[in-house]
């Protein structure tokens, strides 16, 4: 099949990095276009006129926007290394927790950088409650996807970012005592080459933290 796959992304966006990880897990060759969010390419604006955001996957000149929509599209188009389980109920569960991460955990994490004092403590409490949901979901499993990395693991990479930034800022929201299973999962996925390729490179992590604190709504723009 004559395939042309392009990804319009941005180095600091966890949503963009998510799609890169998905592409690498399926070993799909692609061309990466780094977007300057203050000066978006005409292609990006043409491919995503509704939101004008990254990431956008372009497959044989057909654009797909929104990271979760992209990942499901990829899973249905390239059948190797499937992300979603076959069983409809298990699929519903994977989608539920992925939505939970995007709709609840990410906004709360974004809020954290904007708060101080008592409000900050309350936000951390909220994050801990949300992390507990994910901790429970890992019980008896190697990965969120079971025996192998799957859809929810891709979305949950934000936990790796949380761990890495915690090490830099010294603000450990994610503790090994409270969340041992999440920690084991982080160690397990960080052993994977593809995961490491999609993490923010070490030299850029400080920049990322500052960027994230300035743009609370989402790191993708």
């Amino acid at each position, binding site marked *: 099949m004559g395939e042309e796959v392009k990804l319009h992304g941005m180095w600091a966006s966890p949503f963009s990095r998510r799609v890169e990880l998905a592409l690498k897990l399926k070993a799909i060759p692609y061309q990466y276009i780094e977007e300057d969010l203050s000066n978006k390419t005409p292609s990006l604006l043409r491919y995503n006129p509704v939101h004008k955001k990254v990431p956008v996957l372009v497959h044989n000149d057909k654009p797909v926007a929104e990271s*979760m*929509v992209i990942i499901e599209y990829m899973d249905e188009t390239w059948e190797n290394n499937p992300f979603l389980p076959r069983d*409809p*109920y298990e699929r*519903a569960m994977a989608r*539920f927790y992925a939505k939970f991460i995007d709709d609840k955990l990410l906004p709360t994490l974004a809020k954290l950088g904007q708060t101080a004092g008592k409000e900050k403590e309350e936000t951390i409490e909220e994050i801990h409650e949300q992390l507990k949901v994910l901790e429970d979901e890992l019980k008896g499993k190697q990965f969120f996807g079971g025996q192998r990395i799957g859809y929810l693991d891709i979305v949950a990479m934000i936990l790796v970012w949380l761990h890495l930034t915690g090490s830099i800022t010294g603000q450990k929201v994610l503790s090994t005592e409270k969340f041992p299973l999440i920690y084991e999962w982080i160690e397990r996925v960080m052993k994977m080459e593809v995961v490491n390729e999609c993490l923010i490179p070490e030299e850029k992590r400080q920049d990322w933290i500052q960027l994230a604190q300035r743009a609370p709504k989402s790191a993708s723009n």
Partner: protein
Amino acid sequence: MAGELVLLDFWPSPFGMRSRIALAEKGIPYEYREEDLRNKSDLLLQMNPVHKKIPVLIHNGKPVCESVIQVQYIDEVWHDKAPLIPSDPYQRAVARFWVDFIDKKIYELGSKIWKTKGEEQANAKKEFIECLKLLEGELGDKTYFGGESLGYVDVALVPFYSWFYAYEKCGDFSIEAECPKMIAWVKRCMQKESVAKSLPDQEKVYEFILQLKKIFGIE
């Protein structure tokens, strides 16, 4: 595949309506249970401990939460009847994109229209109409968003029609005047029994909103 099916719901919820329509389209019998949101049942709290929200679809004792996830689940389990989600992966991605758009915009903007006044309300109305116009563009000349038959986007969007009268009264504007194509599409959907039976009466929803405004002390 069959088995016990229960929907925990609340009559004015557009999210609950989505699952009602999907089940009706496929002719799947289920038990509808009305929840009092000020006094949530033990079953609801047990089946959706994370969000404690309706709708919850319980299939053979196992809960599926979040309306878009429920509609996809219903479509996947009962895939041989009245398919809602396109079979082509690209068409699916397009449908999912628009459902995501509806979820990000319509409910929140609609809420602002009835909850706020002045400039905030004016901005919400403007953006609401812009969003409906974008959706009109996506509909184009098709009978439904799903083409010749009701699809995923139709099911996700049409429930909000039951709130249009309330938005119009609170915001003092006419949605039909601004978006005639949208209303024409709504009327086609309402001719389907699955939709007509799943949506509450618009006046009833408006009364409900007026009650909410009293409770929250909104003018």
